[in-house]
């Protein structure tokens, strides 16, 4: 399973531009990230809930999978991880990694 996700991260494409009107959300990553934004600040700020910016797609994916398997304890994150498909996890991980490069170049 992890190999499949790694492969889909590797081949994924992400387009982002400073001007939102030029941006294209080809795979729904931005909509998935909007869900994260209910608890995690995505502007580079950090209010105590761990930031999810600055992580590589592989690291973020691994974290989500370990929440899903209960290897990492957090019932909130487990509910989120269980509700996302492997492909959606890869998509949002890619999106957040690309966003990180913009917010924290």
């Amino acid at each position, binding site marked *: 399973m992890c190999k499949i996700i790694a492969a889909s991260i590797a081949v994924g494409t992400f387009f982002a531009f400073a001007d939102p009107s030029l941006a294209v959300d080809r795979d729904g990553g931005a909509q998935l990230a909007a869900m994260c934004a209910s608890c995690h600040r995505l502007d580079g700020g950090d209010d105590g809930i761990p930031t999810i910016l600055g992580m590589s797609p592989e690291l973020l994916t691994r974290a989500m999978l370990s929440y899903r398997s209960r290897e990492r304890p957090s019932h909130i994150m487990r509910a*989120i991880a*269980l509700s*996302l498909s492997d492909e959606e996890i890869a998509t949002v991980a890619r999106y957040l990694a690309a966003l990180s490069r913009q917010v924290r170049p």
Partner: protein
Amino acid sequence: MKSRTRREFGCLTGAMVLAGLGPRLAAGEAKAKVVVVGGGIGGATAAKYLAASARTIEVTLVEPKPRYTTCFFSNLYLAGLCSLESLTHGYETLAQRYGINVIHDSVTAVDPVGKTVGLKNGPKLPYDRVVVAPGIAFNYEALAGYDEAATQIIPHAWNAGPQTQLLRRQLENMEDGGVFVLVAPPNPFRCPPAPYERASLVAYYFKQHKPHSRILILDAKDSFNAQDLFLDAWERHYRGMIEWLPAQFTGGIKAIDVKERSVKTASETFKAAVANIIPPQMAGQFAQQNGLVDQSGWCPIDPITFESKLQPGIHVVGDASSAGDMPKSAFVANSQAKACAFAITAALTTSERQPPHLFNTCYTFLSPDDAVSNAVSFKPAAGTIKIIDNFVSQVQESVETRHRTAREAQSWYAAFTRDTFG
């Protein structure tokens, strides 16, 4: 992926997380117009995500009040643990950063034929879609002796602001040894754990300042949300201070005597030093007046787009919506508003529709450093919305875990209100 330089990206703001949600505006193309009615959590979130999703959509947010005070966390204010100001948010960022046209006015009616929203003091607003987020109204008729005028003597404090301040003042002025009577409403109502969180935090305040005082909860129900967690916490933190009487014990709440500050039940009458009546609830007034409500008192909606089942082109999000298994909470309003904003964006532009992800997360304080949380995922199914997974804190958790959850709750509040108000 080709890497880009910082220069190519230019200067970034928090709005950037939303970049990529929508298409470009073709030259000369008229913007689609969406009017959002109500600037609470559902309305503010919908306006923000619509505005950020597509430059091709012109978003107008109509809300009478200049600022919004959150009901969630207002029990901490009642316990003297935070200011009301710290729970109050303006609309400046939504207007300035996201280009939302914020109008502080009352909406008179929506005209689904002419496709306009009427304002009390301004011109009609034309629309392609409307999002209605009117929150709750109180069904005073279902509670003999209690009405809107009575709320100035016995507050409900179920909309945050002056009502919450009134209840806080009454608790501060109460003599030690008094009884605080809290009347808890029948289902469904805004924020299921909140009456019991309120009892917990008022008990915390009493314990610090009025140790001989007691709390009596007169419930319209026979059980309540996260009951085992509350009963365990009341035993640990406030032994002997909180008494909960279910409807099957009292025979049900029959009437309120405002002058006497007493609550009449089928079995006996209870007199209060301070009373808090949380009345039965229904969808907000605007929904009632504009044909959006069915016999249940709430607004039936499409579980994917949140479009009203009664009025095409009008979407309803937040507490007023009748959304299957989803409870009435701020987190749910925020989650629904995003799903609704993305569905409207897809309908009004050429962007692709993604399947919605619907969530609820609840943080509940049992004491300032003892908090629990609940996380639920949902999916649209068979014309309604069903629970997928439901995880909740456990009774036997360590003190450290509860401390950590309390700290996490404070962090969540900051991130969540930022997500909603920009």
